């Protein structure tokens, strides 16, 4: 490999990091020079210190939120794919149920969460919120994928008298996989959002211990540095989830799908 592409790659990775460093430095400078009190805007150094100091608390909150996110995501993945398979089997079922899936999707989850918290146990309600936000992209992408089968390949399967099940297993599911993975990638981030929204709604209603709850709680107590620290953790969690799903998708598709192929030049 020649030198230029390597230098390009390093530059590409270094650029966002440089922006981050400059931003942090500017932030610290503004806070120090103007003598802004920490309950208005804490400097990055203080946020870092808080992160370390409150680590046990924040870490357990992070785990709570991640567990909710994960449960919501798994439910969304299973529910979205299963529903798409059901719809592909029965046009009637699709006609009957799809409108409600859409209604659920377009109604803001922040408005649904308080209701769910009334009728469901808290942990279930929080997971349900994550599920509601996340399942629709999985459903709609999988439906699209299942219907994106090459017409001639479908003819080929008909020629060889493939059963419905065989056509699903050997043709429609593999053809749908890239779409499905695209949906899951969106669903990962969305279920984190759902979990956070529900935690905040639940937090104002009483108990809770997730990161979003910590943010709300710190807000009431004017513990601004902890708010920032928790927010930072949430963003990092979101980025990691996205990257993990992108990597999984890449590994599954790299042998054949255009989206995962390396550019040649």
């Amino acid at each position: 490999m020649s030198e230029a592409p390597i230098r390009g790659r390093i530059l590409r990775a270094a650029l966002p990091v440089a922006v981050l460093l400059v931003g942090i430095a500017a932030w610290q400078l503004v806070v120090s020079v103007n003598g802004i009190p920490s309950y208005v805007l804490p400097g990055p150094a203080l946020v870092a210190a808080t992160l370390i100091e409150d680590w046990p608390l924040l870490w357990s909150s992070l785990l709570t939120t991640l567990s909710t996110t994960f449960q919501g995501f798994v439910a969304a993945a299973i529910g979205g794919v299963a529903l798409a398979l059901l719809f592909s089997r029965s046009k009637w079922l699709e006609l009957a149920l799809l409108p409600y899936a859409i209604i659920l999707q377009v109604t803001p989850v922040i408005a649904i969460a308080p209701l769910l918290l009334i009728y469901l146990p808290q942990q279930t309600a929080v997971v349900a919120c994550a599920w509601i936000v996340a399942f629709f992209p999985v459903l709609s992408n999988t439906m699209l994928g299942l219907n994106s089968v090459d017409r001639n390949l479908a003819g080929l399967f008909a020629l060889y008298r493939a059963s419905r099940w065989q056509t699903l297993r050997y043709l429609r599911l593999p053809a749908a996989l890239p779409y499905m993975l695209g949906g899951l990638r969106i669903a990962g981030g969305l279920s984190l959002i759902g979990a956070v929204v529900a935690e905040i709604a639940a937090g104002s209603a009483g108990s809770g211990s997730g990161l979003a709850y910590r943010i709300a709680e710190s807000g009431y107590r004017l513990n601004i540095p902890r708010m920032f620290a928790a927010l930072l953790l949430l963003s990092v969690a979101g980025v990691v989830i996205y990257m993990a799903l992108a990597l999984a998708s890449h590994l599954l598709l790299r042998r054949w799908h255009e989206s995962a192929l390396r550019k040649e030049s």
Partner: protein
Amino acid sequence: MTARGGDAIRLRGLTKAYDGRGPVLGPIDLDVRRGEFVSLLGPSGCGKSTALRIIAGVSAPTSGEVAVAGHPAAERTGRAIGFVFQEPTLMPWASARDNVRLPLTLAGEARHDADRRADAALARVGLGEFAGAFPRELSGGMKMRVSLARALVTEPDVLLLDEPFAALDEITRFRLNDDLLALWRGLGKTVVFVTHSVFESVYLSQRVVVMTARPGRIHADIRIDAVERDANFRTSAEYAAWCRRASLALAEASEAVAVT
């Protein structure tokens, strides 16, 4: 080799109309004898692919009868016919071997035997080394060969080919033409070959069936009695004469409809 003679394909009064619009095909009567190599030659859109799909049983005729080896479509098993589409039509997520194995997998054949037969079919089309390659790693001509291997793997009596080489460059097409002829001679299959190339149809087939423009009917049925099919044949005077006849028939067939 199976005994030649008897009808491999029998079409009677075959028509096709897609709903709402006029007929696109027929009525067509055609008999193809066992072991015969027949080309369907016709202008674009005259219904050649439609006819082939109906023979394969993938699409239903609007009226008329189709029998392959004496059986109507409903009574056939999945292995009686091999089909090669205009495009390679391979599953991009599967290796060449897995693609070729598909018909056997669908028939419930054990993995081990199926793999062995798939490899043998790939070797027959000269791709023994590429069993593990994915479609995107193969050239257009190689993909077409994989498609051909897949059509051969069930050892069908009838091979239906829908302009399989139309998208390839001339050199590759000539080579695949010769490969196909060698396979046909070696395996004794009945072949129906769709093309809109006069030269290809004359070079390959024992009969050239010329179709009119939409709705496609049979305009002429030209017998090509050449024994040798090789580079000499391609440059011979008789080859040129047959091409001339087929071209004239094709021109008439196209005009026959333009007038009405």
